[in-house]
């Protein structure tokens, strides 16, 4: 009886999968999430306590404190059995410990590069490269800012040839869709040819 109950419940519960949207402060992460999400982007607080901060890169000082990090996220229902969440990762460096938990189990990541200050996405690129999380770089083209070519961005970020680079406008859903599709295709390729 109990197992019947759980099987019926299982039919009603979709499983979730997540994609991270990373990039420097103000790069357009929340804008991208909002443009593709079926719900208005939500914000949740993660309180990091001593116990949950047992990850690397932490100095002993920080480990004794409690830190609150706000996370934006949106939702895309894929089908009855699958729901995709997009998480904007906290941009500031002091929240890097948060990335460890966020990156765990992520399908992949979009690194949003800000054309006004390309260098602000270096830490994100480093992070995903080191963790082996598949990612694409999406260059959010702000008006009035210098327009880079894909090649210039690739060179500036020292990206491996296999990492896709796209130009985008984070405010436009079609543009963001193209970015997400490129990421999922890249994930599929990464699985076919392990690095």
């Amino acid at each position, binding site marked *: 009886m109990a197992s019947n109950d759980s099987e019926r419940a299982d039919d009603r519960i979709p499983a979730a999968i997540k994609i991270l949207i990373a990039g420097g402060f103000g790069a357009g992460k929340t804008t991208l999430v909002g443009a593709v999400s079926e719900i208005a982007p939500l914000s949740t607080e*993660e309180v990091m306590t001593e116990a949950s901060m047992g990850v690397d890169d932490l100095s002993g000082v920080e480990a004794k404190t409690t830190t609150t990090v706000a996370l934006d996220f949106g939702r895309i229902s894929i089908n009855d059995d699958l729901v995709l969440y997009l998480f904007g990762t906290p941009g500031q460096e002091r929240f890097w410990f948060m990335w460890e938990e966020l990156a765990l189990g992520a399908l992949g990541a979009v690194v949003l590069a800000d054309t006004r200050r390309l260098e602000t996405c270096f830490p994100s690129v480093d992070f995903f490269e080191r963790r082996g999380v598949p990612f694409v770089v999406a260059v959010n083209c702000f008006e009035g800012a210098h327009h880079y070519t894909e090649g210039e961005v690739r060179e500036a970020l020292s990206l491996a040839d296999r990492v896709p680079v796209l130009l985008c406008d984070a405010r436009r859903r079609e543009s963001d869709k193209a970015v997400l599709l490129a990421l999922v295709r890249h994930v599929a390729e990464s699985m076919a040819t392990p690095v």
Partner: protein
Amino acid sequence: MSEQHDLGLDSDATGPLVRPYVMTQGRQRGDAVQLDMISVVIAARAEVDEMALEPEQVRILQLCRRAQSVAEVSAHLDVPVAVVKVLLGDLIGRGYVLARAPYTTQSPVSRDILQAVLDGIQRL
């Protein structure tokens, strides 16, 4: 359909015939349930003895009439994820809520899942 079930998070948790992401009717206390930020939760039954619950837990049960992630519950209640996990863990332990662990790339995501994600994004 059924091969997706192998992609549950807790691959090392239980015997081969127990689908680990369905945590139900368990004896485990809240802290024994490993909830992720994107574990999806849903209310397990319609009738609830509200007197036996914290006010926040009653609100969680109302929210959970529709399946949603722990992160969504947290955002809607304006309660930190860590706190929501404890409240939900208790509800799961008492059989009020069912949870499903997320897909994770620790166990490789199947082609079918990737294709479904592609199709879903394309439909937007």
